[in-house]
């Protein structure tokens, strides 16, 4: 296994180098101005010049994204527990969850500001709305995934409903819940930035990345806008990495997705 370690890092480095080369070539070929298509070098220069602003903004966005993500995780689990309780609850409630999911957040943004208030509460609400659905769907599926013979065994051995939930259904649902969290982790920073853009500046802004997009756009600081995008990506990666770590920590002892092939 060890001698093939290059396969992990070499292909992405090569593909990255190729893309950057293509970018420079495209700029040279088209002769576009820096404020329309900045080169990677100009973007990094802008990122360096603005790094204090960008870091402060990223910190603000991280707070909103984390808040919304945690609310989505807890509420998603709670909703899944209700849906997993009985079929009539699923048929009765699922259509309304779809309605919430299908309604574009941008349409309800004014209502969110009205109800949750501008600034952080509104941003957390937008983040929650954008990221809770995959958690609900995956976790509900997981709660229903306990195998029939296992359920028979619990029934036969006199398990209470609470024991069945605690010792069988919740652990069965864990990999599904974590899969939902992984999707939500990619959505939460996007949701927070979107929220800052939509409702964050209603009170003069919270200084998040979403608000910076608005500021740099007005100032036509296009390389800085690209640098903001880059910072957003990095924030997203941190979220995904954290959830991937959690997934590993909770599952690697027993779950087949961490099967070692060297046994």
């Amino acid at each position, binding site marked *: 296994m060890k001698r093939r370690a290059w396969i992990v890092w070499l292909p992405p480095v090569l593909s990255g180098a190729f893309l950057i080369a293509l970018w420079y070539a495209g700029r040279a070929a088209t002769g576009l101005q820096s404020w329309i298509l900045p080169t990677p070098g100009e973007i990094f220069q802008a990122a360096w010049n603005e790094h204090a602003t960008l870091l402060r903004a990223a910190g603000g966005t991280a707070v909103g994204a984390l808040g919304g993500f945690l609310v989505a995780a807890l509420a998603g689990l709670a909703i899944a527990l209700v849906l997993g309780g009985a079929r009539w609850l699923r048929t009765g409630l699922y259509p309304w969850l779809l309605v919430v999911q299908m309604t574009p957040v941008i349409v309800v943004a004014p209502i969110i500001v009205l109800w949750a208030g501008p600034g952080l509460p509104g941003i957390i609400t937008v983040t929650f709305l954008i990221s809770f659905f995959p958690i609900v769907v995956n976790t509900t599926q997981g709660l229903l995934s306990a195998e029939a*013979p296992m359920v028979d*065994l619990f029934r036969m051995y*006199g398990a209470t409903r609470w024991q069945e939930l605690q010792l069988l259904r919740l652990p069965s649902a864990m990999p599904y819940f974590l899969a939902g969290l992984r999707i939500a982790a990619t959505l939460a920073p996007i949701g927070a930035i979107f929220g800052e853009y939509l409702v964050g500046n209603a009170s003069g802004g919270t200084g998040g990345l979403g608000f910076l997009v608005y500021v740099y756009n007005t100032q036509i600081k296009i390389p800085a806008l690209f640098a903001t995008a880059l910072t957003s990506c990095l924030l997203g990666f941190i979220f995904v990495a954290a959830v991937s770590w959690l997934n590993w920590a909770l599952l690697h002892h027993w*779950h087949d997705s961490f099967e070692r092939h060297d046994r």
Partner: protein
Amino acid sequence: MSDPPPIVQFRAVNKHYGAGPPVLDRISLDVAAGEFVSLIGPSGCGKSTLLRLVSALSPVTSGALSVDGATPEQAREHLAFVFQEATLLPWLTAAGNVELPLRLRGVPAAERRVRAAELLALVRLRAAAELYPRQLSGGMKMRVSIARALSREPRILLLDEPFAALDEITRNHLNEELLGWREKAPFTALFVTHSVAEAVFLSNRILVMAAGPGRLHAGVPVDFPYPREATLRERPEYFAKVAEVSRLLHTAEEDRAA
């Protein structure tokens, strides 16, 4: 002196699922305490259903079924079930799985741990106590599954083709060991299998069933004394018994065609 009452008693038991055709037709059957009874028959003869009735996983449609002098529902406490699959919880260690029935009964953790260690020693898996199911072979998983069933100290053990997925050598070893565990922790066994050789080796009585609808075709006593050694499989009287049961199984299948 009169015989003790049967521990499992079927009286003209019928079983249908919904409005479907009968799965079991007028089953009458007595199993005495301490017996090892195997059920063998073609697919669809209802032998697994019969175990589900005894374990109260499924109710009888008509007729009377008593288990341990009570209803199946009431007798559950003294009953354990081993499925064809090991059905271990993958997130618990071998020891955790063996402890599970005790945990469901509310036995304190310290006591559970001691009991699980004893049972894992009995099934020769002391060293595997802290391993997770995916780290165990098929045969080891089945040992854990049986240890889990034995943790309930059952009076009746129901086994539904527990060794069907294992290779023949592993299966033979487990057959010998199962009889050994029974010496140490006596239980009445109802054992469903597709293997005539396995049924003859384990049982003191074999019930041959016929399908469409499921019914009892013949009962064959197997008089080899316990404890039984692996060398039983080399003896002519063992072969004769295997041949006798195979013949009955054949006529049971013709019975369906008729």
